[in-house]
């Protein structure tokens, strides 16, 4: 039941942000959670996207890996910035996204943009257009390390 999951998530979020435990403020929190749930429920009438909340465990595996990748490529881009603009050889390419689960394509495109040196310019059903500061980063993406990691972390079928 996805609404129950949302209730717990929103309640925990509200409690962590406020930290208040007086009954009056807690009831305000409960009211806000109820309003948001109502909106989510009504939005489903027109929205046909998958509406489940995935397991946070997968994110806990993926985020540290992504942070490490960000750190590595940041160092690369920082070196490019300080060593001069003559060495920059930007390139643009289209990569297939078929190996990534359907509802993780946005995550994939977002991860590409988040990693310095690569930028997702356009995303559709079959491919993502990537602009890179160096052609080597395109080759790295073409080998599919990031796509594989996402597919492996979340699994192919359920996402």
């Amino acid at each position, binding site marked *: 039941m996805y609404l129950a999951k949302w209730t717990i998530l929103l309640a925990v979020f509200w409690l962590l942000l406020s930290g208040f435990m007086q009954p009056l403020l807690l009831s305000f929190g409960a009211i806000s959670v109820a309003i948001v749930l109502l909106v989510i429920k009504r939005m489903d009438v027109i929205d046909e996207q998958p509406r489940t909340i995935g397991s946070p465990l997968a994110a806990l595996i993926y985020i540290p890996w992504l*942070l490490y990748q*960000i750190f590595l490529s940041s160092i690369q*881009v920082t070196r*490019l*910035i300080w060593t001069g*603009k003559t060495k920059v050889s930007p*390139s643009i390419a289209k990569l297939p996204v078929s190996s990534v689960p359907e509802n993780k394509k946005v995550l994939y495109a977002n*991860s590409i943009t*988040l990693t*310095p040196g690569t930028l997702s310019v356009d995303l559709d059903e079959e491919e993502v257009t990537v602009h890179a500061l160096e052609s080597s980063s395109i080759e790295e993406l073409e080998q599919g390390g990031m796509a594989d990691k996402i597919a492996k972390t979340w699994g192919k079928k359920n996402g």
Partner: protein
Amino acid sequence: MSALDYLSAALLLLGFIFSLSGAIGLFRFPDFFTRIHASSVTDSSGAVCIILGLALQTNFDLVTVKLLFILFFLLLTGPTGSHALAKSARHGGLLTIPECQEKAKDGVS
């Protein structure tokens, strides 16, 4: 100063270096798309390092949680903004450097 303080200071310093590099890269890089790359250094690494460094300065209570929330939302919105910029530039007809060079070559021959 405890070990945590040193770690926090190192992270803050690293975040400062990344942010500064992003700002300088923004001026040094040749065209729009490459400049977005420079700003994404500030967006991702700079923000991550500074917020983690600040989180180590707290007493590990709700303030830490709030900082981590800020980090989470920055990691979501930063690339979304860059993507929106790049996508609209591309759909508006802005060419990347290799495409411009190709076009110039075709025009000459």
